[in-house]
């Protein structure tokens, strides 16, 4: 068994009376490509947002490389409304902001591309390098950390070259074609030097050929940067080809887990996607 990179324990996320994610537990191991699938509105992106610190989960814990990273226990009104079973297990309250989570080594992309669209491709990648640079505002302003700045630029250039985006480095990010924006968003995420990469629907809006290219691309970066990849995806072709394990979410609840073959033959999953009649 390989090491566990990401472990989610009993995450519940409630918005008012709506339970978007209900008692979700899963693990992602070192070097794996794991997919989280489910019909629209199943709570996949919410689960991602709980991991990346955008939301503070109502209950549960997220551990990264064995250390608790996000932890919360239901309080006040939530305690009554909380429907989970593990009440009382979690006592600490850890809720870091997204930037701290990125710093720990988790990078993400967004469902609707969120590039810095008025800035150049090169700046987009450089910004992701900002966090890891050893400088402060004073040394940076007065050019006292030029070595660091040079290193950032070299690394960003190298990364763009590896991603075959170098010839576009001066283009304004927002003006690029959709597929390239997706690639740039992944490149930008890689620039934060992550150990775990979260991809939120990387193939959304892509045609079959582009999807195929993306499949190879994800494998390639996984091997090259020794990454673990955890992704949300709707394109079943991509998911079945690439993932080593799949988790299926429906109405916020985990309904199935297994290898692509197991999932393809799982009745519950088929029902969730195709719908079941009331009497079934």
């Amino acid at each position, binding site marked *: 068994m390989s090491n566990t990179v990401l472990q989610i324990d009993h995450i519940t996320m409630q*918005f008012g009376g709506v339970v978007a994610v209900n008692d979700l537990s899963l693990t992602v191991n070192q070097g794996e490509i794991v997919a989280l699938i489910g019909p629209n509105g199943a709570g996949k*992106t919410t689960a991602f*947002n709980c991991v990346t610190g*955008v939301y503070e989960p109502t209950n549960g814990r997220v551990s990264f490389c064995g250390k608790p990273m996000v932890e919360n226990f239901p309080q006040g009104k939530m305690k009554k409304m909380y429907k989970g079973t593990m009440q009382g297990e979690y006592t600490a309250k850890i809720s870091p902001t997204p930037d701290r989570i990125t710093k720990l080594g988790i990078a993400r992309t*967004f*469902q609707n591309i969120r590039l810095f669209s008025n800035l150049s491709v090169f700046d987009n990648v450089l910004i992701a390098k900002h966090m890891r640079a050893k400088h402060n505002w004073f040394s940076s302003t007065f050019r006292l950390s030029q070595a660091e700045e040079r290193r950032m630029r070299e690394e960003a250039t190298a990364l763009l070259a590896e991603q075959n985006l170098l010839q576009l480095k001066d283009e304004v990010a927002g003006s690029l074609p959709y597929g390239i924006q997706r690639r740039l968003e992944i490149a930008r995420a890689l620039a934060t030097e992550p150990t775990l990469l979260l991809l939120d629907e990387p193939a959304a809006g892509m045609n079959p050929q582009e999807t195929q290219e993306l499949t190879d691309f994800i494998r390639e970066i996984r091997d090259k940067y020794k990454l673990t990849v955890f992704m949300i995806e709707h394109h079943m072709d991509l998911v079945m080809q690439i993932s080593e394990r799949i988790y299926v979410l429906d109405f916020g609840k985990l309904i199935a887990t297994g290898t692509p073959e197991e999932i393809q033959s799982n009745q519950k999953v088929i029902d969730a996607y195709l719908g079941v009649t009331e009497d079934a």
Partner: protein
Amino acid sequence: MSVVLPYLLSGISVGGQYALIAIGYTMVYGILRLINFAHGDVFMVAGVMMVYMCASMPWYIAMPLMIVFTVLIGFAIERVAYMPLRSAPRMSIMISAIGVSYLLQNLVAYITGGLSQQYPTIPFISDSINIGPANTKVVTVITPFLVIALVFALVMLINHTKIGMAMRAVAKDYDTAQLMGIRINSVISTTFVIGSFLAAIGSVLYFSNYTGVTYTSGAMPGLKAFVAAVFGGIGSIPGAVIGAFIIGISENIVKGFEAMLAVFGINSNIGIATFSDAVTFALLIIILVVKPTGLFGEKATDKV
């Protein structure tokens, strides 16, 4: 009590006047997400128009005419300065509002020569009246009742008429309302018309209490009314009204704070009254920090 009462009375009265302005802010914000910085100046222009009109005609003709003109100005501002920027970034339209405010102030400064204009005395509402120990004007007493009546009418309009329903729909979801065939522009115009109408009435009540109108008279009441709208939860009409009363009363209590302390034998002369304007903003910042959406505001979350 005899010390507190006059301050309390004028607080309630000023609060009511702020409420009438605040409704204009809150409705426009609810629909366009725009702080209509020019609204306070529309209020001031209404006051100045009243001054000039009363010079040449009796007040009972001047007042309705002034209200009509104010409404037209509000309508025109929206058409000329805000409508062209409907698809522009929000900051541009806010800057356009600041530009309109600047223009109105300079225009009035030019016309009046920058001098304070004596506000006409309107029979009955400018008369003096004694309430217990406090001597005040009739306007102070009728303001809260008039405000409540107007707000009631407005709430009925919004909840029970077709245009009211359209307004609620646009406030809830601008784009979807447009797709549903609601004529956005006429809804927005109606909002400005209602806002300006209430501001015109507010100006009569407000300026009757003061000696004169100058080109800067609208800035501070406008700002305070906006704060009242934020305080009550922007987009909510009852919120704006309650916020306005709270702000009007706290402002006047601060004004009379030392007089009140004197009753308890504490004589201080440190000039707390300097803070009568600042207290509004202090309240604003407290509410924004404690409950950023205001007293009755709805929470909006960013979708990621």
